[in-house]
């Protein structure tokens, strides 16, 4: 069995987990869960936030790192760009948000690639800085009330019935998919995660690639921040919520191993959908929201155990196939 076959089976099994969870919810309260409105709200309005952040997290994990600063950078960039959007200066707002996001991304990237600090620690400290600055700047004042044209970003629909925010997420997904699967630059993420030393020797500029991944995460954080401004109609530091943990959970449940070098954005999409549907289902079933944390944790554990089992099965099958080949050659 080839590696790519294994990856396909792995992805399909995650989709199966998603379908099982949906089936359970559907059996318990079909009239609320199994409606077009509910699905469209969960997939097109609620999932994009977790998904975009999870894309960034996944990219970092694939290169063998992690990015804990995304949520705080998102808050800071949304705060700094909020007044521009409020006044209708969309271009300025986007510029500020992107500059802040990519600026902090550059900081994280340099710390990880040039100063050689472990990604967890580097992004942890950047997270503190970004959130601290956000609180200082915000000073308890929420910025409220954005023009309708801006709100159209999340509430409007350009293409028949699909909210714009879903469109943005899909475009990001498509770009990242092509980047990681079809370009040498993107495939570099995998080789860096798998074997950083060999990658550097093979001529790929690993330092710049790693740095660019964190800058890309900064960009994703900025985009998510703008989308939050539009959906919530306010700049609000509490949007941090459970996003960091959820994005890590989405990557893990979706099947991206923490050791790096494997996984695709498809895994992330499935993982993010699983998490958002769990929260949605539990609200609909009127289970106290505090239980969502426990359930998500259980699903992560299950996904990790399943992943470990799959690895063992794959190894056993590969060994058998190699034995057969050896016997046939004699």
């Amino acid at each position, binding site marked *: 069995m080839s590696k790519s076959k294994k990856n396909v089976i792995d992805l399909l099994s995650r989709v199966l987990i998603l379908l099982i969870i949906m089936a359970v919810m559907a059996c318990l*309260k079909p009239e*609320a*869960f199994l*409606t077009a*409105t*509910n699905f469209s*709200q*969960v997939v097109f*309005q*609620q999932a994009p936030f977790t998904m975009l952040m999870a894309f960034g997290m996944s990219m970092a994990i694939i290169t063998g790192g992690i990015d804990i600063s995304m949520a705080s950078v998102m808050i*800071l960039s949304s705060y*700094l760009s909020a007044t521009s959007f409020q006044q209708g200066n969309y271009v300025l707002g986007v510029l*500020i948000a*992107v*500059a*802040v*996001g*990519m*600026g*902090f991304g*550059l*900081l994280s990237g340099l710390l990880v690639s040039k100063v050689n600090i472990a990604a967890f620690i580097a992004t942890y400290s950047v997270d503190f800085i970004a959130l601290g*600055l956000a*609180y*200082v*700047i*915000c*000073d*308890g*004042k*929420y910025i*409220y*009330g954005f023009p309708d044209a801006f709100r159209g970003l999340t*509430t409007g629909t350009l293409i028949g019935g699909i909210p714009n925010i879903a469109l943005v997420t899909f475009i990001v997904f498509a770009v990242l998919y092509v980047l990681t699967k079809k370009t040498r630059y993107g495939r570099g993420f995998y080789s860096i995660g798998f074997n950083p030393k060999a990658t550097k020797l093979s001529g790929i500029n690993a330092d710049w690639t790693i740095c660019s991944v964190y800058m890309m995460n*900064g960009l994703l954080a900025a985009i998510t921040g703008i989308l*939050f401004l539009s*959906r*919530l*109609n*306010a700049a*609000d*530091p*509490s*949007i941090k*919520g459970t996003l960091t943990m959820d994005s890590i959970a989405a990557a893990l449940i979706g099947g991206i191993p923490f050791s790096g070098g494997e996984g695709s954005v498809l895994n992330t999409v499935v993982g993010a959908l699983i998490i958002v549907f769990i*929260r*949605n289902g539990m*609200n*609909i*079933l*009127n289970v*106290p*929201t*505090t239980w969502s944390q426990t359930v998500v944790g259980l699903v992560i554990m299950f996904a990790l155990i399943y992943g470990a089992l799959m690895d063992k099965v794959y190894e056993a099958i590969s060994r058998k196939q190699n034995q057969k080949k050896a016997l046939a050659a004699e």
Partner: protein
Amino acid sequence: MGMALAMTLGMAACGSTGGSSAASTGSSAASTSTAAAAGDQKVTVIIKNTTAPFFISMKEGAEAAGKELGINVEVKAPTETDESAGNSQQTQLAEEAIANKTSCLVMCPVDKEGIMPAIEKVTEAGIPVVELNSRLADESKAETFVGLENVKQGYGAMEQLLKGLDGEGKILIIEGSTGAQTSIDRIEGAKQAIEDANANGGKFEILASQSANYNRAEALNVVQNLLQSYPDANAIFCCNDEMALGSVEAVNAAGKTGSILISGADANDDACAAIKEGTMYCTSYGNPYMQGYEGVQAAYDVLNGGAKTDFYEVDTVVVTSENVDTFKDQK
């Protein structure tokens, strides 16, 4: 380059707001001018944070009272918003207050149990304690309590909401952080209001009660999901304005603005704007300014002959479109 931009903007913002950092405050300026008049009386006020508008207002009230009464007031708060970390920081601030020989400690605890060891040290050092806004686990250590009756606050907001519903209604309750005393109390008051209304011929029922952790974004998702289960809901009672504003967006997204009445608590600026627009129905002003003010007043009384009562009650005001422009004047 982005970093530089961010930092300069940050610095500029800092400069223009007068540099209000979290742990210590500009009240040191006030203290030098009143030090002569006050002699050695020093009151330390420890609140939950200085990032939420509610507590910023409380700090301002406390400092104003210090100026008017002529005593030295220092307002301190943790920089951590997480409950457990907030408690250890408050403990530290309390111990610093003992070391600084404060005359009286006014305490708004993040964790009413967790702060007790620090409170005991304070009272052992001979420093009286005044409870502010949230009660301590062991009230025998404190001279008096200054604050609202959160139960009354919840009752008032729900009562107003029910009036708007005209005799019958299906209500969703959005709770605050699980275990938060303010949330528990407000809901107790709200449920009492429903019982009283039903006893007088009303037909009100609670469809569901879920927590959104006092968080705007979370409330948006929770309410959006709940509306799928309970499409016939016509009122949403939220334990604070942040969640109420999240509910406003969820209701907008569902196209039901105007047919679902939403109530919150705190009366912050965004909520008042929403009430004026008609997207929110009512909220309740917790009067944090007066809470801070009365907290220092109580400390002053304790230091000068004893507390006048064991409950300095600060009144809450229900805010609707009728008094949204004037309620703050009712001090």
